């Protein structure tokens, strides 16, 4: 399967990258990280070859993603492939890193691959939901190339690194020629494939709040097979408990049950100040299901998804609570 014509720009620094994005904005330019979403979309008619779109509809010159899932390549209104790809591969030294900051938070560079996240003992110990998202993503080959930044910016509602990042309360550090900006992961996605990222902006780092004693997290993906499948439902949670084992903070995110990863807000009221016993678990599961707006599709019906949200919510809460107790 051949790729259409485009030019690839290879900046040696972030400043150069920002300048290039700005100066080629009008011709259509897309950032290339691992390419596991972008190159598939360009090869399939999800992002149609430029010439085709120019002929069929001259007004369709948008450089954002189509609404389609990464593999559903149906729509005739696919946006044109960009004239330029800005490859970040020379910025690996700068943007591929995992670092615990002095305040205990975790900084992950946008080019860090799912494979590297999986292999990091630090991430698995203190930000387990992120490690488990990485475990669930695609296959070993996809994890070797697919990056955290690409997973978040691609903004699929089922994205296996994005959903746990929302649960963990991540902050996204973004640069452009106009400077540095921080965006909450929970507010980043607007619709499938659409984000708050303005043209000219690059996601450079993702910062996860500290994981003090009494904190635990978990992510679980339900799919029809273990490798190479998109979730029917995904769910991630982070919670903190006090010495009496009562929950003092909690954040739960759901994937594949709405147009973007969803923060389950009613769960918070159910859980705050409580120990995690059977009746609380049950209430929390029902609350989570009521927060979601799943649809019927070939991966599962809306009803099935609602029921599975309950099952997954119980599962991840139990796991995260256990981890929180162990870390007290």
């Amino acid at each position, binding site marked *: 399967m051949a*790729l259409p014509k*485009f030019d690839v720009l290879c900046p040696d620094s972030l400043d150069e990258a920002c300048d290039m994005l700005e100066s080629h904005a009008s011709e259509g330019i897309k950032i290339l990280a691992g390419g596991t979403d972008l190159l*598939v979309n360009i090869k399939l008619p999800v992002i149609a070859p430029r010439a085709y779109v120019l002929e069929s509809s001259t007004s369709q010159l948008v450089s954002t993603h189509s609404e389609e899932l990464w593999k559903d390549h149906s729509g005739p209104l696919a946006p044109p492939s960009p004239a330029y790809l800005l490859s970040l591969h020379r910025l690996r030294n700068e943007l591929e890193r995992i670092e615990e900051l002095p305040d205990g938070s975790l900084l992950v560079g946008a080019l860090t691959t799912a494979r590297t996240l999986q292999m990091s003992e630090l991430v698995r110990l203190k930000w387990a939901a992120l490690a488990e998202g990485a475990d669930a993503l*695609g296959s*070993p080959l*996809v994890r070797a190339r697919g990056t955290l930044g690409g997973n978040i910016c691609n903004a699929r509602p089922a994205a296996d690194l994005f959903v746990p990042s929302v649960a963990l309360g991540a902050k996204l550090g973004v640069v452009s020629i106009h400077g540095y900006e921080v965006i909450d992961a929970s507010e980043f996605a607007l619709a499938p494939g659409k984000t708050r990222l303005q043209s000219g902006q690059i996601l450079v780092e993702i910062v996860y709040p500290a994981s003090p004693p009494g904190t635990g997290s978990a992510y679980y993906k339900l799919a029809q097979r273990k490798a*190479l499948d998109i979730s029917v439902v995904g769910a991630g949670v982070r919670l903190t408990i006090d010495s009496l084992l009562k929950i003092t903070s909690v954040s739960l995110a759901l994937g594949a049950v709405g147009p973007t990863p969803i923060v389950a807000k009613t769960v918070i009221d159910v859980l705050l100040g409580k120990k995690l016993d059977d009746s609380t678990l049950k209430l929390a599961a029902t609350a989570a299901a009521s927060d979601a707006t799943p649809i019927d599709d070939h991966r599962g019906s809306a009803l099935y998804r609602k029921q599975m949200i309950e099952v997954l919510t119980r599962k991840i809460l139990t796991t995260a609570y256990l981890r929180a107790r162990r870390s007290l």
Partner: protein
Amino acid sequence: MKKIISLTVNGKVVEVAVEPGRTLLELIRDDLNLPGTKLGCGLGDCGSCTVLMDGIPTFSCLTLAIQAEGCRIETVESLSQDGHLSKLQEKFIEKGAIQCGFCTPGMLMTSTELLRRNPGPDEHEIREAISGNLCRCTGYQKIVEAVQGHSEEGEK
């Protein structure tokens, strides 16, 4: 516009001019004449195009040649030395882990990396490692046995 990149392929430094849209797979097969690496789906699903890039199993069909600049690439052609197949290749033959052979180069590269990182993998670890490499013929069992058989006897 073509770009000149330099990379190491099977131990040799090569400098080539590539079209920006050229995949690493096309570079390896068509420009460097190393046809061992196969094109299956072209979309990251099957793993028949797997090579090692800086030691990591990588689908060359979804990697631009330009993205591999400065990297160390190993293809299936690097496994045999002076006309002798590697131990792992011998095991694939001995255990019947090859039928049509189309997945074999990718399977070999993925398993080679697994064995470097984990010389004595158990069945679960082997199945997990090759879960991005599809095989339509063998049902995987023979491939698992070949990798296991190799690790029982140790590296050549």
